[in-house]
């Protein structure tokens, strides 16, 4: 990222800010989608990330830390969303997500192809699996196992030492394994992994 562009955005140049958003929007939205697992809410969360970015650009000191810093904002926004979502789910367990409603509607009309059904099943399976761990574990695991970030990158995002990160990762993996076993015991379909 060009530091001059950041400087311009910091000094109130809206076009420079727009340029920053355009550069990172696609990648950030992809990461958010995988962190929260709900494509219909990705734009809202992404807007929240860039809103936080806009009002905290002044705090950024060096351009080298821009990307980890933006990832940190993304992680925080996803974390807030997941916590709100969990509270909402606790109070309204029977409600279907917007995507589920649209999908059910589309399926009823025979408009959903086999690939989409498979993708949906995968998302549901992972959602159940990650629903069995805390939001912190979920985010850490997605960044490491799904996004494929290295420990060095995670260190910068979380601002913690490598050993502490390894311990957290180890514990998160243990908990997801337990959730996996619990999901299997509860009879969650394992067909999601098999291509249709």
């Amino acid at each position, binding site marked *: 990222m060009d530091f001059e562009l950041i400087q311009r955005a910091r000094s109130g140049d809206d076009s420079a800010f727009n340029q920053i958003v355009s550069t990172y929007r696609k990648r950030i939205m*992809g990461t958010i989608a*995988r962190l929260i697992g709900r494509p219909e809410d*990705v734009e809202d969360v992404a807007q929240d990330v860039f809103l936080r970015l806009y009002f905290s650009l002044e705090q950024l000191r060096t351009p080298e830390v821009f990307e980890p810093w933006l990832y940190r904002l993304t992680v925080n926004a996803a974390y807030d969303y997941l916590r709100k979502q969990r509270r909402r789910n606790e109070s309204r367990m029977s409600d279907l997500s917007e995507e589920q409603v649209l999908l059910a509607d589309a399926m009823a009309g025979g408009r959903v192809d086999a690939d989409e059904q498979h993708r949906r099943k995968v998302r549901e399976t992972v959602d159940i699996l990650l629903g069995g761990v805390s939001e912190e574990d979920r985010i850490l695991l997605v960044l490491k*196992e799904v*996004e494929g970030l290295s420990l060095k990158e995670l260190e910068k995002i979380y601002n913690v030492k490598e050993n502490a990160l*390894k*311990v957290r990762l*180890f514990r998160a*993996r243990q908990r997801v394994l337990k959730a996996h076993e619990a999901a299997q015991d509860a009879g969650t379909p394992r067909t999601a*992994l098999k291509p249709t």
Partner: protein
Amino acid sequence: MTMKEMLPGDERPLPGEIRELFHAYRESLPDMDASAGFMPGLWAKIDGRRRVVYSFGRLAGAFVTAALVICLLLSGTLLTLNNPPAGASQSSYVDVLADDTADADFEFQLASAEKL
């Protein structure tokens, strides 16, 4: 499990089944581009937040001004109470009474002299 055993946790991968599941999850949610309403929506949120910050700033400014005015008024009131009016006497009650008696004596002496 000891800490020493836990540290190489990163090198201990998840079982193949879960890794495959995560891989399929990644494939099912590729990077996506925003809709046409993304940027206008973002700027609307930014403007909304700016308005809130501006209103709060104005409110805080008004509060500070009001506090300043109240301070000045209170200071003025206190100064007025501590400093008596220009015409008021600075002497003690006994001195005023003595002065008053002295005046009365003088008048009495004048009246006596006139009678003589």
